């Protein structure tokens, strides 16, 4: 299941809604991405704005999730991605995977977040006291996604 929304999400409520009452599930893995103030080499980030391409986002996220379900024996999965303006400390993205056993849940969760970062059509613009700038894509993210080529 895929949701793109401006509002925050409640991690516990999302996991409960996805998995509650399903007696086949033995393992739930989750990833939560949070906005950081640390800009590495530049001034601290005061906020960021996420722009996205709604029609393509839903399509890409659905494909990414279908691919995870082909690779692993998942009982349920959820991606929630926020857009709009976010300040440091705010949650950006939630990935939840549920399976009978931990390995499928953990691996599928890592796969989904690596693919999200390279395939989902989101763009970040960071605000600092020195001005605003669009974040450039990182080669490290491409390498993290490539790790999954040909696996498992």
């Amino acid at each position, binding site marked *: 299941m895929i949701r793109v929304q401006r509002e925050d999400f409640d991690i516990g409520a999302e996991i409960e809604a996805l998995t509650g009452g399903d007696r086949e599930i033995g393992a739930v893995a989750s990833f939560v*991405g*949070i*906005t*950081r103030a640390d800009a590495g080499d530049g001034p601290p*980030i005061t906020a*960021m704005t*996420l*722009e*996205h*391409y709604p*029609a*393509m986002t839903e*399509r*890409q996220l659905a494909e990414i999730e279908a691919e995870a379900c082909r690779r692993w024996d998942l009982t349920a999965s959820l991606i929630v*991605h926020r857009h709009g303006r976010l300040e440091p400390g705010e949650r*950006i*993205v939630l990935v939840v995977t549920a399976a009978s056993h931990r390995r499928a849940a953990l691996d599928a969760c890592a796969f989904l*977040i690596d693919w*999200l*970062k*390279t*395939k*989902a*059509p*989101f*763009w*970040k*613009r960071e605000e600092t006291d020195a001005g605003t700038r*669009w*974040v*450039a*894509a*990182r080669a*490290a*993210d491409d390498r993290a996604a490539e790790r999954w080529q040909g696996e498992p």
Partner: protein
Amino acid sequence: MTLLYFAWVRERIGLDAEEIALPADVQTVAALLDWLRGRGGGYARALEDLSVIRVAVNQEFARPDHAVADDDEIALFPPVTGGARP
């Protein structure tokens, strides 16, 4: 054809979307980018370095040799930077 622009591509071109009539000799993504760049101004600035331009045809990532047609929705944007900041 519907053209959509995102992030700094949108800012440099100065539009988030426009409808164009596709010239008959523009049949691929690469030819479309060349034709748009030839409009000059913000188009030339946005498309000066094609290594940082990504294209989606009807919401799917497309390579330069991908065919384009008059009823397509084509989006131009920088490489994506979603998820949490690394």
